[in-house]
């Protein structure tokens, strides 16, 4: 069953249909939230808020927009809010230590160079201004077109291109020493 059919059933009170939509999109949205916010707990909070808000607001969803895009728009807003709140208590990026606690099996199998890269990538993303990180992840992480990103973020395409360009320059500068392998 496709998203539109599931949305129709969810609007009619079928919560299992909405749970199916959660299953379909949870991991994709989680990937963005995790890279944007840096921490697993924050990402999971953003996801929970996003899906609960989406469920409450299903009546305002218009089918001419892909359901995934609609979810992403809500998620981007929730991530901005959480990032702003976290900004007051300091920025902490997911680092190797956290990643290893989550996936201890990787400790033995991942080459040291892999850890170095991931550490550098997390650090570089964490140093980007939120606007730049958001645009960079949507463009080069999710692979969205600028027109789609503009629709999600409310920024103009020209502004987004500039943000992605600046993000790339800063990221490349940060990662220069570890990406040659």
């Amino acid at each position, binding site marked *: 069953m496709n998203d539109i059919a599931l949305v129709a059933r969810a609007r009619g009170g079928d919560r299992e249909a909405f749970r199916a939509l*959660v299953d379909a999109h949870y991991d994709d949205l989680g990937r963005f939230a995790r890279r944007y916010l840096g921490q697993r707990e924050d990402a999971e909070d953003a996801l929970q808020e996003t899906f*609960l808000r989406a469920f409450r607001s299903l009546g305002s969803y218009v089918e001419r927009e892909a359901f995934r895009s609609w979810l992403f728009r809500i998620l981007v807003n929730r991530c901005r809010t959480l990032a702003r709140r976290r900004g007051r208590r300091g920025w902490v990026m997911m680092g190797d230590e956290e990643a290893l606690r989550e996936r201890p099996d990787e400790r033995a199998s991942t080459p040291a160079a892999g850890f170095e890269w991931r550490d550098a990538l997390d650090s570089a993303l964490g140093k980007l201004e939120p606007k730049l990180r958001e645009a960079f992840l949507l463009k080069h992480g999710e692979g969205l077109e600028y027109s789609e990103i503009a629709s999600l973020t409310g920024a103009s395409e020209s502004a987004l291109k500039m943000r992605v360009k600046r993000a790339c320059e800063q990221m490349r500068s940060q990662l220069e020493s570890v990406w040659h392998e």
Partner: protein
Amino acid sequence: MSDDKNAKDAWLERVRQSYRETPGPRPEAKQRLKEALDSVPQPGRRKRSALRVWAMAAAIVAVVFAGVLIIGRSSGRSHSLQRASGEASDSVQVVRFALSAPRASRVSVVGDFNGWDEAAAPMRRQGAGVWTISLSVSHGRHVYAFLVDRDHWVSDPEAPLAPEDGFGVSNSVIVVGSPGGT
């Protein structure tokens, strides 16, 4: 293609690969979300008894915040679009939102009534740096916030805050409707 371009593409490709391999959320977090869905009101369908509760709350809210949030009335003009059938779920009223933000260059109101779309309801600057907009909002309880200069989320200083849903996010609440409107 130059060596520099090749190098740039290789760098970005590795970033993309790392992005694809980002550790996912924990399964228990997804399960918690699915369980939480049971406690969320069904979209677009509210029980009549619940409407009566909201209607009573609306009367209180209208009195307390009449100076800032004008529900269904603006300068004595009634904008109620409630239908004659009396079906509250089909009723909307005009709500005037206002925020004092003298230094802002752009303000919008964003909430569940417009799908949290930042571009859906840009406010207009009036005198003394007060930004306003009038929107048709369906009866019931709604959660919203102001977005200032596209980056700063601001709760309505004159409205109650929504329960935090356990996540500490402070949005504002408006209850649209009247005791006699159901």
